[in-house]
């Protein structure tokens, strides 16, 4: 395996201008900045409507130094295929095509075109930044909103259903590379993107992206919240490379250590889980424990 990237070996070149329109403390802001460093200058980015559309600026001002194509909500992966095929037709295969979509644009309205691209084996990287809801439209529930979370359209009882496991769905497509990551672990994300772009076909990385206004915590705690999700085992960092499952970074460390922080530390730090009962929190802990016992037995996801 290639050497891990460190804060010192990270490229100095910035592709996202400072002063962009991301909210204060935006997890996407971290992931996008680091992600574009990993992708480098020879890249075209495809973006459906989402927080990233706003971050990228309002016409005629752009906050990203890479060419970017804004497309309709359901069509991200198909539009990426179109750009890719045009580049092939023109002999410009060296340029990387990368889709950056939110969880709605990936797990809900975007999943059909994404699934189609996976089945066809189109050669691009799809990154989902998962802030666990429709944050750009005012925090409504999405397929990846976790159970128990208060949102604008689950306002009193919280979301009743489980979070959709998009990485598992993508793994079931049999693509060569699926990974999870977190905005709180940018170097782990950086290395995964570097690895992904060295492989063929659709590559998929699902980034847990804390969101201060949507999750209900102070803007300075974005990294802390992301770390708590991983330290409690609620969110895991892993990769599935050609079918081989492997925990990475902090999650690999957690498995080795054999102990995790209690999940309630993560839940209690966010006001979106404020109406969760102790019984519900115990259920969440039990599910997390069950997941980690499969990791411990070496079964993977």
């Amino acid at each position, binding site marked *: 395996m290639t050497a891990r990237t460190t804060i010192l070996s990270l490229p100095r070149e910035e592709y996202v201008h400072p002063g962009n329109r991301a909210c204060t403390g935006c997890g996407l802001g971290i992931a996008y900045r680091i992600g574009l460093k990993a992708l480098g*200058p*020879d*890249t*075209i980015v*495809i973006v459906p409507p989402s927080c990233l*559309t*706003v971050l*990228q*600026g*309002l*016409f*005629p*001002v*752009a906050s*990203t*130094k*890479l*060419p*970017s*194509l*804004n*497309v*309709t909500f*359901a*069509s991200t*992966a*198909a*539009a*990426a*295929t*179109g*750009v*890719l*095929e*045009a*580049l*092939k*037709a*023109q002999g410009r295969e060296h*340029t990387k095509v990368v889709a950056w979509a939110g969880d709605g644009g990936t797990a809900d309205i975007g999943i*059909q*075109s994404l*699934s*189609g691209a996976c*089945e*066809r084996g189109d050669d691009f990287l799809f990154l989902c930044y998962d802030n666990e809801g429709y944050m750009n439209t005012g925090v409504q529930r999405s397929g990846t909103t976790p159970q128990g979370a208060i949102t604008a359209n689950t306002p009193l009882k919280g979301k009743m259903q489980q979070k959709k496991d998009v990485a598992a769905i993508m793994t079931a497509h049999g693509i060569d590379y699926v990974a999870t990551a977190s905005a709180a672990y940018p170097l782990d994300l950086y290395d995964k993107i570097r690895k992904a772009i060295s492989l063929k076909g659709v590559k998929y990385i699902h980034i847990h992206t804390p969101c201060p206004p949507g999750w209900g915590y102070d803007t300075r705690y974005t990294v802390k919240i992301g770390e708590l999700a991983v330290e409690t085992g609620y969110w895991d960092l892993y990769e599935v490379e050609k079918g081989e499952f492997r925990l990475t970074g902090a999650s690999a460390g957690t498995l080795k250590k054999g102990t995790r922080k209690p999940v309630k530390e993560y839940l209690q730090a966010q006001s979106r889980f404020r109406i969760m009962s102790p019984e519900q929190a115990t259920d969440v802990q039990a599910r997390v424990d069950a997941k980690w016992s499969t990791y411990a037995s070496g079964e993977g996801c």
Partner: protein
Amino acid sequence: MHIIETGNVAAALGVQLAGVQVVAAYPITPQTPLTEKLSELIEAGEMDARYVPVESEHSALAVCIGASSAGARAFTATSANGLLYMHEQVHWAAGARLPIVMCVANRAVGAPWNIWNDHQDSISQRDTGWIQIYSCDHQQIIDDTLKAFRVAETTSIPVMVCYDGYLLSHTYMPFAVPEQEMVARFLPPFHPSYALDPDAPANLNTVTLPEIRMDVHGEMAHGYMEIRYLLQEDLRNAVQVVEETDAAFQELFGRGGVPLVEPYRCDDAEYVVVAMGSLTYQLWDVIDALRTEGHKVGVLGVRLYRPFPDAAVAAALQGARGVFVMEKALSYGYEGALCSDLKSALYDHLPDKSRAPFVKGLVAGIGGREIKTVDLTDALRSGLAGSIPGPGWIGIRL
């Protein structure tokens, strides 16, 4: 070279000759033989293009949008509900000013399901900002497909080439296939003014405000309204581009000459029947028969529907006492869209409105209901006598 083939194959050969680089399509009857032919040509190495077998029509146009934004010549085709499923993307392609060409093998829309011909699918896309051409026979299908790329790339506006499902898509007719070397003279390679390029990065289709706004160099940039105004202005000017393109085609290939409207025996006609698509030529026979009975009648085929050639339509109808607009589509709750458009054109262009002809809208062939020449003749004979029995839906049996 003349061949005998279907309308779908005529379209496919037009796409092949046009040097399309990216084709994306999803199967729907009656478009399927067109895209089957293209996949065959591409797999056999007879056409140097990428074929993307997408999982939906929404994605078919998305692939074309991506490919065109990156500077490739892109094509798709569909029918009926496939076109409706694309609708958001149809708007998007025009707003993004992408010169995509799409063939529509016209078919009725559900519900209830019906796979046969009418024009409801493409007429319901008329307000999207696309150019719409209606081909009346196989020769026009292949020629219009070639012209469509030149018009689209000249105007940066996408073009729909519409032809009747089954009646044209699946019937065999003789037509001339242009020589590749001649096509190269007519249609040069696609060089867009901007294509996605890391060496010249731009953020395309980004959020645009209601008001004009200063860029980082201190220049004022358009607001959304200015961008949309320019689309409208360029679409209106596209009437002339369609005419010029047809003239250039005619000079090279010796065919064409009716890019906007096609009048038949209209010069001294007191009554004119207006139609689009294959019905136009069927009406020629009807008019010939009525002429032998002494009726001064003519046919006006509308070939370009958007932008609407209002001046040409009004000029062709000037002097007529009555107009019958025969349509395979409706703006439900009112009347046929072509009928409304035609009335507007007359109102705008006739110098003496007191002498405006009466305009009677007729509906025919909805969902593939057979349009019998005898029914058409009977209906028009009644119309000329002053009254059309029933609701004006030709052949309806309630």
